[in-house]
C-alpha cells in the first residue's frame, strides 16, 4: 500500500498559484485556486487548464497486444484506427466493474489511461492475466497529463500546437508538439465542453503549463472538475460505479459489445440483459435549494428506493443535482423522467425529480 503522498510534476506551479491542495488517490492535487464556482464558470463560458497527472498511463506492446486487451475490455478494440481512442470498462468475471478507462491505439502500441485510484489494481489485474504475446509497463510517473477545456479551447491552444487542431476529431489524438514539447494531443475530456488532453513527458510539463498560463488561461482544480463532469452526467468510479455494479446497471451498455468474442464478464452481462435490470442509475435535480450528497437515501412514493451515488451543487443550474442507483426491481412504479423522488437530507425529505442526462449540454464535439 502506498504510504507516501506523490507530487505531480506541476506541484510547484500549484503552490505558486496558492492552490488549496488536497490528497487525492495518493497524490497531492489542487482542489481549487480562486474558487470552485468561478473555475467552473470559466470552463463553461470560455476555457480552463487542468493538471491531471495523477491519472495512470499503462503502455501495452507486443504482437498480441490488441487481442489480449480485447479479452478484458467490454468495448471493441479491433476497429480502432491509429490515433483513435476508446472509452470502455474492464469487468470482473461476475460483471462488476474494475475501472472505466480510455484506450488509445498509438504507433506500435496501446495506451490505457486509468483512474488514479485504480492504477495499481489494473496493473495487478494485467499481471494476473499476462501472456507472452504482450507486455505492459506502468508509465504514470513519466507521463504528465494537462487538459485544456472549454468552448474556446481550440482557439486558445492552436497557437501553441504544431498540429492543426481542427484535424483532430472527437476521441482521436495526434502526436506533435505543444509549446515546443512533444505531446500526444487528443480531443477528449471530462467536462462536457470541447477540449483537449495533452500527454507530455513529465519533465516538460512545467514548461507547457507555464507557457499556457502566460497567455491567461485560468487554472482549474479537482473541485470544479467534479461539478463540471456531474453537470455533463459523466460517471465517477468509486461513486457511480464500482465492483458491485455492472456496466448495464449504470447506463454504460453502450460500451459493452456483447457481439464480441468472449471477454471477462461477458456471460454474466448477457444473463443480466436477458433477465432484465433490477437497478438503474438515474439523474435527478432537487426542487428546493438543498444539496444531495453521496450516500443520502431516496424514497419513491414512500418506499425506500436507493441511494445517491454522486451529488453536488450545479453552478450552471444553481440547484442541487445528482446521480442515484435506484432499485427499480423492488419498486412498483416505473422510474423515468419526471418521476418524483424524496431525498433524505439530515433526516428530512426534500423533493427532487428524475431528469434527462446530461443536466447541462456543453460544447463537446461528439460525432465529429
Amino acid at each position: 500500500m502506498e504510504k507516501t503522498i506523490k507530487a505531480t510534476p506541476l506541484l510547484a506551479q500549484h503552490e505558486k498559484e496558492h492552490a488549496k491542495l488536497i490528497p487525492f488517490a495518493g497524490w497531492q492535487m489542487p482542489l481549487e485556486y480562486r474558487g470552485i464556482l468561478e473555475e467552473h464558470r470559466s470552463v463553461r463560458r470560455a476555457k480552463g487548464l487542468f493538471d491531471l497527472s495523477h491519472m495512470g498511463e499503462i503502455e501495452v506492446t507486443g504482437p498480441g497486444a490488441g487481442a489480449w486487451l480485447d479479452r478484458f475490455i467490454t468495448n471493441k478494440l479491433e476497429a480502432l484506427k491509429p490515433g483513435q481512442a476508446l472509452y470502455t470498462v474492464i469487468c470482473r468475471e461476475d460483471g462488476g466493474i474494475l475501472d472505466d478507462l480510455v484506450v488509445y491505439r498509438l504507433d506500435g502500441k496501446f495506451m490505457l489511461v486509468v483512474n488514479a485510484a485504480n492504477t495499481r489494481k489494473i496493473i495487478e489485474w494485467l499481471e494476473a492475466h499476462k501472456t507472452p504475446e504482450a507486455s505492459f509497463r506502468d508509465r504514470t510517473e513519466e507521463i504528465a497529463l494537462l487538459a485544456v477545456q472549454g468552448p474556446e479551447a481550440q482557439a486558445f491552444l492552436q497557437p501553441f500546437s504544431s498540429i492543426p487542431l481542427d484535424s483532430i476529431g472527437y476521441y482521436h489524438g495526434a502526436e506533435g508538439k505543444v509549446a515546443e514539447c512533444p505531446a500526444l494531443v487528443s480531443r477528449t475530456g471530462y467536462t462536457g465542453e470541447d477540449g483537449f488532453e495533452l500527454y507530455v513527458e513529465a519533465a516538460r510539463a512545467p514548461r507547457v503549463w507555464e507557457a499556457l498560463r502566460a497567455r491567461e488561461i485560468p487554472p482549474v482544480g479537482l473541485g470544479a472538475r467534479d461539478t463540471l463532469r456531474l453537470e455533463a452526467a459523466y460517471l465517477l468510479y468509486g461513486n457511480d460505479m464500482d465492483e458491485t455494479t455492472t456496466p448495464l446497471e449504470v447506463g454504460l451498455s453502450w460500451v459493452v459489445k456483447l457481439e464480441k468474442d468472449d471477454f471477462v464478464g461477458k456471460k454474466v452481462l448477457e444473463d443480466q440483459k436477458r433477465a432484465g435490470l433490477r437497478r438503474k442509475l438515474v439523474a435527478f435535480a432537487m426542487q428546493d435549494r438543498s444539496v444531495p450528497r453521496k450516500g443520502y437515501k431516496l424514497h419513491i412514493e414512500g418506499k425506500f428506493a436507493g441511494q445517491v451515488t454522486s451529488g453536488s451543487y450545479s453552478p450552471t443550474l444553481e440547484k442541487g443535482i445528482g446521480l442515484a442507483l435506484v432499485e427499480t426491481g423492488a419498486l412498483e412504479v416505473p422510474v423515468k423522467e419526471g418521476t418524483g423522488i424524496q431525498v433524505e437530507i439530515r433526516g428530512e425529505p426534500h423533493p427532487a425529480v428524475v431528469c434527462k442526462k446530461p443536466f447541462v449540454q456543453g460544447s463537446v464535439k461528439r460525432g465529429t
Partner: protein
Amino acid sequence: MVPENLLYTKEHEWVKLEDSKARVGVTQHAQEQLGDVVFVELPKKGAEVKQMAPCGVIESVKAVSELYSPLSGTVLEVNPGLADHPEKVNQDPYGDGWMFVLEVKDSKEVEHLLPPANYRELVGVTP
C-alpha cells in the same frame, strides 16, 4: 482579518454583543476554509439554541459543515438574504453574511468565548 469588536468560538463563529442580543456569523477564516458557500440552513425564529450545540448547516460545493451557536438563547432574527445569496457568507462574512440574532439567555456564557487575540492565535493570523 479578525475584527476587534467581536468575540469568537473555536468553531470559527463570531459574535457581536448588542445589549441583551447577540448577532452571529462565521469568520473570514471559516469562509476561506469552506470555499464557495451554496446553501445555508439556519435555525428558525423562536428556536432555542444552546452554547456550542449545532444549530444549522453551511453547505459549500464540496462539503457540509455544522453551524454552532456561540451562546444559549432564543433566535430572534434570521438573515433573509442568505437564502437567495449564500455567497454573502464568502463576500462579507462580518457584514451582509451575518446569520442570526439571538436573545442571550445567560450573559455568564460570554466568558467561554475567545477574545480577538486568542482567536488570532487559533487561526495563526498575525494582527
